[in-house]
């Protein structure tokens, strides 16, 4: 009996020891990134077509799997190195401001990389002059005011960063379809849940100008919201208002309308308070697609008609829903519902197609102007 008991415990212990999971052998937190920032344009220094390494370029590294951001400057050799990185997926963004004939030009470039364990990532990022759309989304206020459940004061602000007058005729403003799709970075379209359109003829229309340096605030409801929520804002002076004739939406007769073009939607233009995307497109081309079991319709908008798009999310580790071909990052990381905060471009006209770096969080919202003015 004694022998049996001893044998039983030894066998059981051996079996239990087998149940345990083997401890991984590679320690976390020892990743290293070593990146050179190069320019081949010849504008920063050197000859066109010959890579030269960029001194004092601002390099931002952000994790896509956990909360981590570091901002570094390249040394004279154009290199940045960062040690002790935790395992995860990262995005590196490099930019350098250069004044060419007294005009500030922004050179930028980026790369995504994955670090595991003690791995060192070595690479070169070539920066180039950023070609940005001249009409862009400058500010989005989506969180709602610091009152109980008050989010009807949302607005989107457009900005003409060019030196020419542009036209808003026929442009559509959308709320992006809020779902990640596996092929979203491969397909040549984006999907819209809500879509509101400026009057006029897309592309060729000349009735609704936006002057160089002008802001255009588009309100969900162009009313003085501070009458209903003291901490909210006055949007009765907004330039435009979204109006949905299919529902019981309030229409301020003194403010012109963007009108709903999704026949299955009866609600006003409202966007999610934590994670969503806003896209503007020329409006020249789109189709309808039915989805679900209830006859719901979404818009399919060709990518080549997209003017600008911004995805926002509270967490840097959120799943991307808008293709990285329009926006590689997230605005508003860390911003929460009913905080009274909005996201606005860090600099007027800066558009690198990575909202993580293009946008900053501001409070209070600034409809019709910018916090950097």
């Amino acid at each position, binding site marked *: *009996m*004694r022998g049996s*008991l*001893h044998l*039983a*415990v030894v066998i*059981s*212990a051996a079996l*239990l*020891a087998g*149940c*345990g*999971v083997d*401890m*991984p*052998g*590679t*320690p*976390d*937190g*020892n990743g290293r990134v070593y990146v050179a920032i190069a320019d081949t344009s010849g504008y920063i220094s050197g000859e066109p077509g010959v890579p030269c390494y960029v001194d004092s370029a601002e390099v931002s590294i952000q994790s896509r*799997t*956990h*909360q*981590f951001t570091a901002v570094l400057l390249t040394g004279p050799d154009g290199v940045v190195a960062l040690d*002790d990185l*935790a*395992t*995860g997926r990262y995005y590196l963004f490099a930019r350098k401001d250069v004044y060419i004939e007294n005009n500030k030009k922004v050179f930028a470039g980026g790369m995504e990389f994955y670090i*595991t*364990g003690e791995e060192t990532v070595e690479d070169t990022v070539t920066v180039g002059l950023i070609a940005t759309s001249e009409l862009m989304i400058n500010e989005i206020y989506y969180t*709602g005011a610091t009152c*109980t*459940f008050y989010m009807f004061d949302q607005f989107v602000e457009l900005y003409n960063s060019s030196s020419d007058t542009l036209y808003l005729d026929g442009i559509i403003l959308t709320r992006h379809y809020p779902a990640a799709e596996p092929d979203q970075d491969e397909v040549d379209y984006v999907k819209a849940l809500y879509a509101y359109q400026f009057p006029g003829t897309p592309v060729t229309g000349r009735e609704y100008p936006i002057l160089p340096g002008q802001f255009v605030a588009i309100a969900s409801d162009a009313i003085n919201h501070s009458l209903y929520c003291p901490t909210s804002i006055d949007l009765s002076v907004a330039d435009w208002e979204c109006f949905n004739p299919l529902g019981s939406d309030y229409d301020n007769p003194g403010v012109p309308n963007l009108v709903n073009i999704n026949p299955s939607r009866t609600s006003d233009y409202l966007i999610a308070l*934590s994670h969503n995307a806003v896209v503007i497109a020329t409006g020249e081309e789109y189709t309808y697609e039915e989805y679900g079991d209830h006859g719901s319709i979404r818009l399919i908008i060709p990518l080549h008609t997209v003017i600008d798009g911004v995805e926002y999310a*509270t*967490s*840097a*580790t959120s799943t991307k829903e808008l293709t990285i071909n329009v926006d590689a990052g997230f605005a508003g990381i*860390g911003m*929460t*519902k*009913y905080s009274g905060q909005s996201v606005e471009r860090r600099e007027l006209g800066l558009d690198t197609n990575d909202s993580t770096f293009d946008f900053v969080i501001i409070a209070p919202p600034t409809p019709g102007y910018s916090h950097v003015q």
Partner: protein
Amino acid sequence: MRSIATNRYGFAVLFLALSLVVVASGGWSNELRTSMMGNCSIALYDEDNQLNPYDFGHNPAYMLNDLEFEWVRFIFGLEEERGELKRPYDPLLVNNLYLGFTGIKKLSDRHVTKGSFAYTRLWQREIPNALEIDQYNDPFYLVDETTGDFEYYGPSAQVDYSIRLKPDLYLGLGFDYDICTGLKQNYTRPEIVHTYFKGNIGLIYEASKSWSVGLVARPVRLQNRTKFRRTDEGFDNVIYRWYGDGIYDVRAVSDYTVRELLYGVELSLQNFIMTDRFKLGAIMNYSLNQNELRYGATKRLLQGFWQSTVYDLDLLARYTPPGIPLVIGLSGRLMNDDGWAKRPDFDDILLYENPVNLISAGGGLSYLIDSADLLVSAEYVMNMYDVEAKDYGASAFREVDIIQNIGRLGLEYSILNVYAFRGGVEIIDYLMDRWLKYPSNTDLYRFTGGFEYHTGYWQVDLQLAYSEETKKDYEASRRGMSGIVWVTRLTR
């Protein structure tokens, strides 16, 4: 009899138990007398501290042999601990109030059962940011942005059963079950439902009159389910999920659930030599605990994994020389607890490593001064700890290799077997915390006093305890007070 409070299932469960029974007072254990006498246990003879497989080995199979009387006991305890000398996420003040009863009954000559029930209110006050019932049970933790109070309510029950299968073979079965619900009183207002189950299956084989061999298996399941709900104001619940002290992410959501699930098992092989003058207990334990953390609103994704494997050899010997009322005791322990953690998204990468090694040796004496009806017990334990807390994700590495000294002194003055007055002091030089986050080189001083009154079938015990943790050249301290009352009715 077996002790509920001193069961060991690896550090994770131990620390959780410590957080629930805040002041080491022994109130909800069966060892109030030894607790009153400074926690002396090596050489102090006590009905509840015998060197046998039930009291020392917690083997339920031996309960039949351990039983001397049937009794029913009512228990009331109030414990409080307060002070700034603590780890960052520990509560400033802990208040623990409990009521319960426990009893043991012999069903026949072959079997005996014991049951306990208690209802506890645990109030953890001014907790900075922490959102778990035990923030330090693994390297993963949740925090928010506020300091607040948690209030937990819930019952706990323990049942043990022992039966003699053959004249020399005993089987024991038992379980412990706790459930409590806690609510943080302010934003982010999470609700925590804590459930804990531990089975206890034991065998005892009496190989000879003086030699018993035992085997115990203890499966453990512990679950903490934390729910965050939409606030009345509609604000997001902003919570930070930490993976060690270097990696975190932020979640801002209305509804969110975190489930922490620990599965563990302990196997224990026990050898006991019990003669009239000499007793020796040797217990070899192996335990494995795995803790999984799942986060999510709809799908609960596995985000954290913690495992600890413990090998533990525990020895205790007592000798009573002939002719003098003296007990000499020696204790020893070898323990190796290898804990580590990973983020399952990165399965091959080690996030945290936390080996704890302990070599312990102790000795004690108990002497009865007949002429003065005074029992004196004194003991000394030397624990040599080698602990490493390697947080690879944070590139933070801590290590201590220290000797912990523990001294205990207990006195008992008896009058006519009716009254007994007891007092004791316990000093622990360097409190140990496996994460090495407790302020280093903190000492504990614990002073106890109490009395027992015995008449007929009734016995009343009262204990008052005061404890103070201090650190040299450090102004802050942590003080605890507790009061425990037992009313026991001997039924046979």
